[in-house]
Structure formats: C-alpha cells, structure tokens
C-alpha cells in the first residue's frame, strides 16, 4: 500500500484559508453566495464547488479557550467506503487510482440517490442539485500526475500541509506527533491506518469537527 498521502499538522494551522482559495483557483470553481452566519467558517460546510474547507471550532476547556482549525477535505481512504457503496449502485462510477491512491468520482455518480454520511464516514461528498453529480477533492490528480503537489499544499505558508509518498509522510507525521506530545500529551493523528490524509491535532478530535475521526463520529 504505497501511493501518496497528505500530512496536515493542525497545530500550526492559522486558518488563513489560503488553501481553501487556492483549491478554487486551481480548479476554477465558482464562489458560493454566502452570508455571515455567526461564524468565520464559510461556506458553512463543503459544497459541490468547495472541496477544501477550513473549519473553525471554539471550545472552552475549564475556562480556557481553544480555537481549533481544521482544513477539511476528502481523506482518500485506503479502503474507500464511498467507492464500495457507489459502485454497487453504478459500477465504475468511482475510480481508485492505483498509483496514487486518489479516489476519483466520475459523472456516472449522477443517478446515485444517497446522503453523504451513508457512504462516507467523514461526511465529505456533495451532490450538485442540478446535475446530480457527486464531487469532492480529487487530490489534484492532474498536478500530481505531472510531478506537482496539490494546490492547497503549495499555498500553505505555515508548513501545515505536506504531500508525498505514504511511508515518508507517515514517518514525518509520527516524528512530529512525538515532538508535539512533549508539550501536549493528548496529541493525536486521526485514523492513520485508514486514510491518506493524516490530521495531527491536540485534545479531542471532536473538538475540531465531529467527523474529523471516523471513530469519534461513532461510525
């Protein structure tokens, strides 16, 4: 199981949202008409044209405020349940790139009538209301196949995101985990064996987002 993997060190994320914008820019995705809904997080959730979303979550732990930021995206699961389920409805509607491990949706998904959480433990896929087509992050497969890194990774000035061969990313992630644990004993990597997007955080994964870890999401 080689292929590619992201390492996302949320302890360094400042929620600048450069990644969110660069994703739209590379893919030429339109802006969503939003309003301020009492949070900086906008659009409020992933949309059919928003594949990367920085989530903002405030938690109050015994009077101490923590503001957690999670640059959310599809995890490109090692065994993607979305692929399993969607391909049962429409064969080959979801492809799994052997070389990179990228999970890729095709237009054949248009007829699949499900809720996102019914096929994805991370509640990621979104459906276009008009065309019915499902969409999500495709690992910038066009860039990766040409030796480049995904757009979001190159935009991150804080060094939150890294992208490369899976073993290398796992090694970097665990090394960093050990480092962070010196200061924060409760540091974690969410579901490292199951996903190609290794999120490193501090405390309870659900304090970032209920779907950060499939375990905490109760699935």
């Amino acid at each position, binding site marked *: 199981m080689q292929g590619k993997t992201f390492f996302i060190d949320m302890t360094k994320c400042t929620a*600048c949202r450069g990644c969110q914008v660069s994703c739209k820019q590379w893919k030429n995705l339109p802006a969503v008409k939003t309003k301020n809904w009492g949070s900086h997080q906008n659009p409020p959730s992933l949309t059919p044209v928003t594949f990367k979303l920085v989530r903002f979550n405030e938690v109050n732990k015994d009077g101490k405020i923590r*503001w*957690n930021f999670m640059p959310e995206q599809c995890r490109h699961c090692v065994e993607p349940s979305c692929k399993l389920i969607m391909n049962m409805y429409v064969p080959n509607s979801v492809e799994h790139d052997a070389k990179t491990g990228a999970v890729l949706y095709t237009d054949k998904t248009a007829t699949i009538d499900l809720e996102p959480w019914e096929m994805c433990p991370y509640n990621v896929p979104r459906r276009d209301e008009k065309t019915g087509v499902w969409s999500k992050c495709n690992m910038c497969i066009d860039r990766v196949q040409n030796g480049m890194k995904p757009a979001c990774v190159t935009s991150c*000035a804080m060094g939150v995101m890294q992208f490369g061969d899976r073993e290398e990313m796992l090694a970097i992630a665990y090394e960093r985990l050990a480092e962070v644990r010196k200061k924060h004993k409760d540091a974690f990597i969410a579901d490292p064996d199951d996903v190609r997007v290794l999120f490193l955080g501090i405390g309870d994964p659900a304090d970032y987002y209920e779907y950060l870890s499939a375990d905490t999401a109760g699935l």
Partner: protein
Amino acid sequence: MTNHWIDIKNSDCVLIMGSNPAENHPISFKWVLKAQEKGATVIHIDPRFTRTSAKADFHAALRPGSDIAILGGLMKYIIENKKYFNDYVINYTNASYLVSKDFKFNDGLFSGLNEEKDNYDKSSWQFQTTSDGVPKQDTSLTNPNCVFQILKKHYSRYTLKNVSSASGLSTQELTKLYSIYSATGTAKKAGTIMYAMGWTQHSVGVQNIRAMAMVQLLLGNMGVAGGGVNALRGECNVQGSTDQALLFHILPGYLKTPLAGQDTLEQHNKVNTPVSNDPKSANWWKNYPKYSASLLKAMYSNLTPEEGYQMLPRIDSYKASEYSWLPLWDRMYDGKFEGALIWGMNPACSGADTHKVRKALTELDWMVNVNIFQCETSDFWKGPGMDPSKIKTETFFIPCASAIEKEGTIANSGRWIQWRYAGPEPLNGLLTDGHYFHELWEEVAKLYEEEGGVHAKPITELSFDNMVTDGHFDPRKTARLLNGWFMKDTVINGKQYYKGHQVPSFALLQDDGSTCSGNWLYCNMYTDSGNQSMSRDLTQTPEQANIGLYPKWTWCWPVNRRILYNRASVNLDGVPYNPKKAVISWTGDSWAGDVPDGGSAPGTINPFIMRTHGVGQLYGPGLADGPLPEYYEPLETPLKKHPFSNQLSSPLAFHFQDEEKAVADPRFPYIGTTYRVTEHWQTGSMTRWEPWLVELEPQMFAEISPALAEKIGVKNGEKVTLESLRGKVWAVAMVTERIKDFKIDGNEYHMIGLPWHYGWLTPDDGGDSANILTAGIGDPNTGIPEYKAFMLNARKWQEGEI
C-alpha cells in the same frame, strides 16, 4: 523593524502586542512558529482572542488603550526585581544621564505645560550638561536626577493593582507576563516585540511604542538576534512609502520638511544637524547637510543646493494639528480646498469619522481618484444619503496598473529593498502611477511655461527627466536616482570619482552639490556594479547562516545592515553577549557577521549612532507629550476617572474642540475597536471585488461576548445596530467567548470588535465602513487617528433602520 522577518525565529520570547500577525501579517507568523518549535514562548496580549492567540502559549485580554499601563508595570517589575541587563543599561542607554533639576512629574502631568494645556515647554526636560555640552552622568545610577531613578519613581505608581484596574488583566496574568518576558534580560536570551496598528492608532500611539522600546533597552534586547522593536508594516510597501516620505513632516530619507523661518539651506541644516562633543558619539545625523544637498540635487539637478532649497514649500510647524490627516479633512469639510487628487486610497472608508470625510468630498469642485477598482471614494456622489443632483464635485476615476503589473522596488518591514519584475500586462492598456505622475507634471509644467503663474519654478525646474526615458516613467532609472550619482568629477579622500558614476555609499555623499541622491538611506543599493535589490544570492558565511541573515538576498537599508544597532549586541571588547547567536563579532582587526553600525574598533563609539549621544533613549526629551510614556485613557472612554491619577486622558491628544466625545456616557456604554482580517485588504476596495474572498468574509460583523449578546437580546448571526456620536452601521453579531468582558473596579465593561473592510459599493448587503463610528481624535506627534478605542451603543437591528 530594527530586525527582519527571518530573525524572529532567533527569539526566545515573542511578545505580540498591538498586532495580530497570524491574520494580518501571515508570512511573519511562519517565523513565530519556528521560534516556538525551538522552545520560544509566544505571548499574545490583545483585546480579542484571535487566530494569533489560538497559536500562542499564553493569551490575555487587555482593555483597548491600556497598553502603557501594562508596559509601565513591566518596567516597574524589571527595575524592582533587578531583571535589567546592568552592563547594557549603563553602557548603551542614557540611564545614567542627569536630567534638569527643574524636571517634574505631578499627578499625570509633566513640567512645562502651558496655560491652555495644549503644549509643553520642554526646557525642564533637558539633560544637565558639562561645559562642552556633553550630558552629565552618574554611572552608579543612584543620583535622584538620573534617568534610571526618574524612571523608577515614575513607574513605581504602576502597581499590579493599578495596572489591573486599568487593563482588566488579573494580577496573576500580569505577573505571568512580567516574569516570562523579563527573563530575557540576560545576555543569553532575546525577547522580541511584534506590534502594528494596535499600538499606533491611539491618542498615545507614539508613547506606546516608546514604552516598549524602553523595555527592550532595559532588557538588552536591542541590536541582538531575536530581539528589537519590530513594527509589522501592513501594506506591502508601507515601509517604502515612509522611506520616501509620504508624510507631511519629512522629506525622503527622514530629512525634515523645511519650516517657515528657515530661509536658507544653511539655516535649515543648522537646525537639523545635531552637535555632540562626546568623542564616543558618532552622531550620524551630523551628515545632514550632505544628505539634504544630495536630495536637492536629485530634485533640481540644474540648480545649486541653495537654489534648490528655495523651491521647497515651508510649513508652519510639525504639529499634527496642522497638516496631518484629520485636519486635512476638517479643512476640506470647511470648504477650504478646491480640488483633490486621491491616489491609491479609499478615504471614504478608511478615514475616521467617515460621514465627515464623505461630506468633505462634496465640498470640492473637482476630485480625481486613481485606483485599481472603483471604490466608495470614486463613487462617493452616489453613496448612501447623497443626492447626486445636489453635488457640485466634478469627479474623475482613473484606473491604473496594479502592483503585479509593473516593476520596481518594494521595501518590506525588515527594510529589504526587493526588485519586483512586472507580471502580466495591465488590462486594456492601463498605465502605471509613475506614468500618470509624469504626464500630469508635463501638462502642468507646460501650462506654467505657456501661461506663467505664481512661483512656477518649483514645477518647471524639476528634474523629472532623472526618472524618465524616451518620454516614459522609468523605474530602473528612478532606482538609480534613489541611490544617486556624481554630478561632476570629484576627488574624495584622495580617490577620484567620475561624473555620472553611481555613488558607492552614503559616506561619500557631499554637501556641495557634487553628488545627488534621491534618498541617502538607499545610497549603496544601486552602485556601478548593479542594482542590488535584484540580487537573489543565498550564500552566506557560517556566522551569518547561524542567524539566517542572508546578506546577499536583495539589499537592505542602511548599507545592507540587517540588524540595526548591532554594536549593542557585543560588549565593549567586541565579544558577542550571546556567542550562540552572534550578530557581529570583532576578529581583532575587523568585524565578522552583519555590517556593523560604524566599522571602528570595539568600545570606541557608542552603538546607537543615529542618536545624538549614541545611546538608547530610556528617557526621550523630544516628543510632544512627555519624555516618559504615561498611561492615559483614550479620549472616548467608559471611565470617569483615571485609575491612578487625576489626568484622565492625554492633555495633548489631537482633537476638534467642537466635536463631542463620549466619556463615561451612559448613551454609549460599550467599547469599540476596529481591526482587519486575513481575507480582506484595508478598506476592501481590492478584495471586495474578488468573489472567492467575499465568499469567506461576506458581511460586516461585530464580535461580541455572550454576556453583551444577552444584555441586548441578540443571538449569534442576527444583525445589530451600532451607534456612536458620529453615526451608525449594521453588523452581523458574532457571539463568541473569544471576546471577554472587562471587570474594572467592580464594574463590567463590554467590548465590540469591528472589521473596517466593508463599504456600501460592493458586495450587495455587505454593510458599510466601521469608520462611520470612529472619532477624529489623534496622537499629538503623528496625528494618527484613535481607531482602536472609542465608545458605542448597540441594539438589535430593526428592519429599515439603516
């Protein structure tokens, strides 16, 4: 910045106060995180818990405007607990200098205040001097008139209890801050400060920064790697625009604007050229006449420096109440301007008391706005409350090329002058600002020549050709002019220099008209060996690499010195205080590392060469509002009484007598403060046209605490109406525990945080400028408006209300 961006990583303690770098200077924050990874403590003292606080090791919320209370308390802590760096304080600061026996400080006021209480006679603030004019000293620091004792006495009033009642920080939080930061007062540790408009935009803006500079001097943090006083410049080229004097009181290179009465260049030079008889003082400003003459030759190459000087306008005083931003708009409001060129800015959203600014524009006969996009200024005549049929102002909008579509230098916060090459071609054949300036000058000069006029020569004699090639503005030639060249063949110190060759360094500039230099500080940037701002060479010596100096990456003023005052990083023998992070060191016959502040041997000159006496000014007798920072309330404040003196606010703060202020006014009970977010840029005149950014931050909002939300009956995401004495706006309430209520002397005060990025023009339903609420109040030294603290009322928004 005295230091530079990369240098932040060398710090052992990063104090972030008066700024929000994770949001507003994002790239700087990468170096903060690097310092933190290496073990530095990151402290954020800010009214709000922001994206910066989220990454800090420690955040505490201060009431807007109470910074000097906290910093004064820090100085008290440092002095009383002997945390200061003794050798440094004695050798490199004016701690030992004796102040006039007439100097007094009494209950919030310094000696010398005139009867109208709007000006200080500074004579009693001066130093006692010996017969040859050198300040008297007591290096035992025990004389009651020495700076150190004056400081000690002044800040003895800043007790934990007093500071806590001013700032809202608990005494525990204060002690934590003080003990962590003052631990950098040893040779082996460096603390840095990152500040921005959170400090400058107050009626005590300059004194805020002075207070921190004093802390840094006491702790020996100036001139060292990982230390310094670091202003984060928010605009990408705001450092450059300051260097080139986009301000009323200075000329390029921080030379002084001539005052009325300085009838000759000689008189002007005399006033501005300090004299020191101390053999250890390099007193660099002694060279003022060379820099002024060279600037005049750059502007008026065909005239002598004296003739050139006669071309310059004079101003009546450097008082902020005369020529700075607020009085300018006040005068326009009173109909005293005929026309205005408003270039690359959007005052109809950025100006304090925006209704007044917008009204002032209607008093003009004509107005030209040059900008990338239309904005609330270019389109003011059709804004809310305006009746275009009744507005006389003839308005022009000239779109121009954006920064990435043209080439030229850009100066970053760390004083690096970097060449930027042009990216894409400007759309629709648009031209650059430089081009428009030149065309405008050509037209005006032609009119003067054809039709004559009063005092035409300053325009007609101007050597604009120094910046023009084949009729077009030429940024490369302009860069050469900034450096300057020899006007004729000259011999200096036995060496021959030739007409037309570039001057190698400002040490060779002359006062007789034989050299020109558009900005003496930039002299050495563009020599005969080329334009150093284009250099992209990463090589460095091991000493330089150790602290990430990168001296060959672009060029930095002055003379490529990357860390200012670096002679203060070594002892009198030239040995670095902290050898592990040496900036410079004496090798026996020369200096290794950075370019030192003067190349002479260790111990021969004082390190702060730009100061007359060569030492850091713990005590500074030059500012308008006092030689020591004193804590004053903002001019609009919830408090009736200063927590520990009888002088509520700065007696000298600039304001308009006839404009009412909300002081402990029950109609305006809440503290307002303004700021920026990552996703928008200044007034938003560039970013509000960009759908991806509007998607992220679509509407004017107000961050408020849960307690205030409950009090006014507003839920998260609902609209509120905000009102000050100047006007009202709506905003979407963001109810968050990140906003704290301030408990002061048993009372609870609520704060409302507002971004100032919005404007009525776009997007639809985006809201309007927060500056509709801010006041025309300013710092007495600079005139910068007090955008960071004012008083408001808030209530639930009613349909149709605004």
